[in-house]
Structures are given as C-alpha cells and as structure tokens.
C-alpha cells in the first residue's frame, strides 16, 4: 500500500421502484458510503428505478420509512449527478416534471442553486457506463 488513494468513478445503477423491495434504500446507503470516501459518484435511474425520484411519495399507509427526502440531501454529500433515462420515463408515461426537484449549491459559482437531475438518452447512459471504474447495480 502506498497510502495514496486514487479517486475513482463510481456509478450506481438503480432499476427498481422503491418500497416493494429493499434495493432502493440499500443503494442510497451505499451511495452515501461512496460519497464519504470522496469518490466521484454518479447515479443512474433506469427502468422502474425512475420511480425512486417521484415527487409526493407518501408511505404512511404501508408502514415503511419514506426515504425519498434523502435524495434531496445528496447535494450536501457532493453527490450531484443523478442521471435519469429519458426512454424509461417515456415508457412509463412520466416526464421530469413528475420527479422531485433536486438541486445543489455550487460553491464555485457563488453558491448558485443548480439542478442535480440530468435527463439522459439511452445512448448517453451507454457512454456513462463506459467511463466508470466501478459499476454497482441495485
């Protein structure tokens, strides 16, 4: 060991709707671990994964924790790249307007609020995967 750690590119791919299984919540926990180690973290929301970012989630009737607010705090942990696949939204009758507004404060631009959600075509997702050091799937 040299003691010098390299900053790696981590992509977390989320393909499942929240609450029915533990995948979405587990992904979020691992994302925060990656961010704590100051890695270059990106999130991808593909297929039913786009439902993780839906606005207005209310889990009070099903007895599980509503962790959807956590996505809005990701900016404070330097997690600022949430790629949502355009085709996955369209197939489900959704648009980006149906998702929570998620933003971060850019300290290099006088703390201007900037959107963290980036709608990406499938071809952009392919390029995103190809530039990663590590891909973790949930």
């Amino acid at each position, binding site marked *: 060991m040299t003691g010098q750690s390299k900053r790696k590119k981590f992509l977390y791919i989320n*393909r499942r709707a929240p609450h029915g299984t533990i995948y979405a919540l587990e992904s979020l926990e691992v994302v925060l671990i990656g961010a704590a180690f100051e890695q270059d973290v990106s999130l991808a929301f*593909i297929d039913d994964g786009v439902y993780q970012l839906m606005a207005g989630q209310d889990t009070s009737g099903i007895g599980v924790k509503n962790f959807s607010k956590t996505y809005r705090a990701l900016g404070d942990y330097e997690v600022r790249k949430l790629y949502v696949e355009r085709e996955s939204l369209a197939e489900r009758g959704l648009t980006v307007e149906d998702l929570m507004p998620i933003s971060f404060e850019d300290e290099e631009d006088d703390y201007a609020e900037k959107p963290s959600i980036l709608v990406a075509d*499938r071809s952009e997702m*392919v*390029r995103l*995967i*190809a530039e990663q050091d590590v*891909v973790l*799937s949930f």
Partner: protein
Amino acid sequence: MPTLHTVNKSPYERSSLRSCLDHLAEGDSVLMMEDAVVGARRGGKFVEVLKAARPSCTVSVLAPDLAARGMKADDLAEGIALVDYGGFVDLAVANARVCAWL
C-alpha cells in the same frame, strides 16, 4: 476498454436481459448465468433479440448453469458461446468493469 455485462434472471420472467442489450457499447461482452441461461436455448423467443444486439458484442452462457437446467452445448442458439468458470474469469479480466443486470 469494454464492459462485461452479466444477466442472471430469465428473460421470460424479467426485463433485465432486454435492458442489458439496450445498453451495450461497441465490443462489450454479455454473460448469461443462473436462470438467464434459459433465454439462450435454440428455438426460444429471445434468440432473435440476442442476434439483433450489437454485432460487435459477444454473448456467452455459463456452462454449469446450463447443465444444471438439463441443457447441453447443442441446445444453444447459433452464435452463443459456452464458457466454464475459468472462462468467466477470462471475461472479467478482459474487460475494464463488470455491470450486473439484476
């Protein structure tokens, strides 16, 4: 450097094979393992889907999983390779990253 994509669910039950094939880059490899091997059988409805995936990509099936489900190399659709556990390791080494489609 290309990506190794692994799929472990039957395409008759889940959409993960479809999603995987929709996200391939030039020169990537696909490994069908566990229940996914059922999608590689000759005459099945996913054979055309696999053939239509990027021509520059290779598709392999993990042999012990195929055998466990009562199939042999002859049962595989044309153009699909059979690899053992050593071949799985070779694929992992030959690619820069592994992307699992769960």
